[in-house]
């Protein structure tokens, strides 16, 4: 049966689908603090949107609670600012019922790793076609400065005056462990790479998880300086590029070599190892993705950034439609008379 929603979903866009970034900026003031990492995400998102050729009315941004939760108000698309931790199940119901929509979830390290942690792992394993942008600032900012599930051990916050005792989640490892087909990490200081990763995430069919280090000026300023500053960034991060060896350092003079299954930093200038000894990244190699993800909190290794894994699997929403189509094709479209009557019925005259 054709429903009203089928009719709406099938409505053609009037006019040419040709946007400029400004078309995605609603007429509202952005209310993040000055210097918030959020701005660094918002503008590339607005910038890449015209490239996809998706009509604005087909795009939905869903958020939870936290500073990231404001994001939908700043996008001139459909938007849903929901409740703490629940953006993903809401987006999941939306995407399953409306596969014609481009669905984005904007969340944070508290929203997505703590209160919404269960939804996150299940969204990953289902491979539902949703893009998740997770602002990771390693602190609860909207409640003014408590530690989050990604705060580092020993971090002093308003709710950990003597230092955090918990081990932090490594969001990329968690996503990969839960079966995410696309997992990537970026930061707010390199906008060009961030933009390219946003594009890759947007084009990925299935769950696309992008962790973005976003600096919180107020409650955790400089948390990522080691990885993002001009002085120290290059020596402390390694950018993963598909098909390329893992080279890092200000002078591209260091690399990552596999010692068995253990990644080891090596010098490319001391004559012991050359470029051919380095591990070559392969986005489709899940085993490698795990190894690289687990480099994250090792103080002796650079922090990996970029796309850890991008593999292709049917998305959940596709499978739902496929199952329905298959049933209808093999058994015929069910009639209400048949459904209501069931298998055992009788007539009273």
């Amino acid at each position, binding site marked *: 049966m054709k429903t009203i929603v089928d009719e709406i979903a099938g409505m053609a866009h009037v006019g040419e689908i040709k946007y400029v970034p400004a078309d995605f900026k609603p007429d509202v003031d952005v209310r993040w603090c000055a210097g918030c990492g959020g701005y660094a995400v918002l503008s590339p998102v607005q910038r890449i949107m015209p490239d996809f050729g998706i009509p604005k*009315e*087909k795009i939905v941004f869903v958020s939870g609670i936290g500073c990231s939760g404001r994001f939908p108000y700043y996008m001139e698309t459909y*938007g*849903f600012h*929901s409740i703490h931790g629940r953006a993903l199940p809401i987006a999941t119901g939306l995407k399953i019922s409306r596969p014609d*929509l481009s669905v984005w979830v904007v969340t944070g390290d508290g929203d997505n790793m703590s209160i919404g942690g269960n939804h996150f792992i299940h969204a990953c394993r289902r491979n539902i076609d949703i893009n998740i942008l997770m602002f990771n600032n390693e602190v609860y900012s909207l409640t003014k400065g408590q530690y989050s599930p990604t705060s580092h051990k020993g971090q002093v916050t308003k709710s950990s005056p003597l230092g955090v005792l918990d081990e932090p989640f490594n969001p990329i490892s968690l996503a990969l462990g839960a079966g995410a087909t696309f997992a990537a990490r970026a930061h707010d200081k390199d906008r060009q790479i961030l933009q390219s990763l946003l594009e890759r995430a947007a084009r990925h069919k299935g769950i696309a998880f992008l962790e973005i280090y976003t600096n919180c000026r107020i409650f955790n300023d400089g948390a990522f300086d080691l990885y993002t500053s001009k002085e120290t960034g290059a020596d402390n991060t390694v950018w993963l590029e598909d098909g390329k060896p893992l080279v890092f350092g200000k002078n591209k003079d260091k690399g990552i070599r596999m010692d068995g299954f253990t990644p080891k930093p090596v010098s490319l200038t001391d004559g012991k190892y050359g470029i051919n000894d380095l591990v070559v990244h392969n986005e489709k190699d899940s085993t490698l993705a795990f190894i690289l993800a687990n480099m994250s909190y090792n103080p002796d290794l650079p922090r990996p950034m970029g796309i850890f894994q991008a593999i292709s699997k049917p998305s959940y929403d596709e499978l739902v439609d496929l199952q329905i189509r298959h049933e209808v094709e093999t058994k015929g479209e069910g009639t*209400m008379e048949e459904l209501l009557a069931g298998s055992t019925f009788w007539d009273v005259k």
Partner: protein
Amino acid sequence: MDKIVEARDEVTVRFAGDSGDGIQVAGTLFSDTSGIMGNEVNTFPDYPSEIRAPEGTLYGVSAFQIHFGSKNINTTGDFIDVLVAMNASSLKVNLGNLQQGGIIIANSEGFDAKNLSLAGYQDNPLLNGALKEYKLHQVDMAREIKTELAGQNIPPKILKKSKNLFALGMTYWIFDRPLEPTVKWINKKFKGQDDVILTNVKVLNAGWKYAAETPEFTKQYKIEKADLAPGRYRNITGNHAVALGLVAAARKARLPLFLGSYPITPATDILQDISGFKKYGVKHLQAEDEIAGMCSAIGAAYGGSLAATSTSGPGLSLKTEAIGLAIMIEVPVVIINVMRAGPSTGMPTKPEQSDLYHAMFGRHGDAPLPVLAASSATDCFAMTIEAARIAVKYMTPVILLTDGYIGQATEPWRIPDMKDLPDLQPSFVTNPEGFAPYMRNPETLARPWAIPGIQGLEHRVGGLEKEDVTGDVSQEPGNHQRMTELRRDKIERIALDIPQAVVEGEQNGDVLLLSWGSTYGAAKTAFDTLHRDGKNISFLNLKYLHPMPSNLESILNRFKKILIPEMNLGQLKMVIQAKYLVPVDGLHKVQGKPFKANEIENKLREML
């Protein structure tokens, strides 16, 4: 010896045994056959929380009760006329409800030393005269089956599993029921396994033959057809009726159906049913938890689906925060709560009506929503459609309360014609001209349903307080007051759009019996009995718990006394007293069992 045939207008049969004895199957088949014969039927499956509890134990007893007759049958029967007891424990647990002089069919094999000891019997009640008040038939079912099928090599597993059919065959003889419907079922169920079909059909026949040929079975009972409206019928449980009601409502609204749920006793059937309706284009998500069940339904509703979630008490607790969000963003979601005994895990397989407070008040903030209650298994169908109608028309989540009793009880259901069901009218907006997300329909106060996909309607919604009309985020004091009042008024206006309450019996007088939900059956039966006796009594069944019918107050004021029987400690009583300032007597049963009609009748006699 010639058999005597006695006519009866109603009978209650109860099959009882271990949870692995196939009791639920035997009961269901008996009830299907009785429906097909044209009887009114009401059944109640009563099973333990354990899936396969240790054999022979008292806590592992599973039972299925069938109350059928030629007259109106509204309950599962107060007392048992025929008890089929497959072992000692099932006799012990159920004997208390057996009618004086009732019939016991005892599977004597289940009364060996081990079974007797598990049941706590010092010596065998089948042999020591303890049951002399009853008509006791002892049958070693396994031995009889072996004798009947002598020469055939029956695997012990099939032998053990087919005893229920032997017992069923015996009861078919006692109540003069045909075997064909069950034979048909066996053929369908075991399609492709000819030997299993053959054995099962033989065993069923053997049970019938045993009763027919054993001299101790002296009496057959004849129950005439009930006076049912012409039409096509089937047996249906409340849970199945809800699932069908959701599909029917979606069709009538021309909306896609989405169910987001998490398995929970006793509501799981709804999720299972819907998951099997793929060829009807229905979508579902077995979510990672109850919260995600509700949230995925909200997401689907936001996208324009008729969205629903099904659950039971603990699940409703978990969904609570998200229900508040649905109230705030004003989208339709049908929430089915199949109530069970609480609090906490409580007694998961046992019914109760103790979630009324939760349904009405269980949210933070001033957060009213419509609350409906279905009063029988078949009523679940109509009330599900009604819940969907209200949800879609008023853009609000609606809670429909059923319970573990009517959810799993079966009744013959006259299959409706889709043409006779109400049309549902979703208020989609497609024209951007003058659109504002919170511009309300002046009549219903509903906001427009503006779903993604419509060019020019791009807007933002969310859990933050909204500015009236524009839907922009607002913390303006006067606006919050206005929006809170609007959300309340929208729900209260529904009172003008629901049927008036109807009083059976005298329109004013001494005692008004007021039922809601599944207490309807026992209350109606008690009322009918007393009314027939000429007592000054009236009866009202309430299906709309919030808002209540607009004529309810005037009705309540016309009676000297009001009695509300409910399976809780007085929740509707409290609401009615608080709302209408009338004194109410309560009758409260929280034993995990539905009311018996005579319990309500006795209380009414005290009050009259």
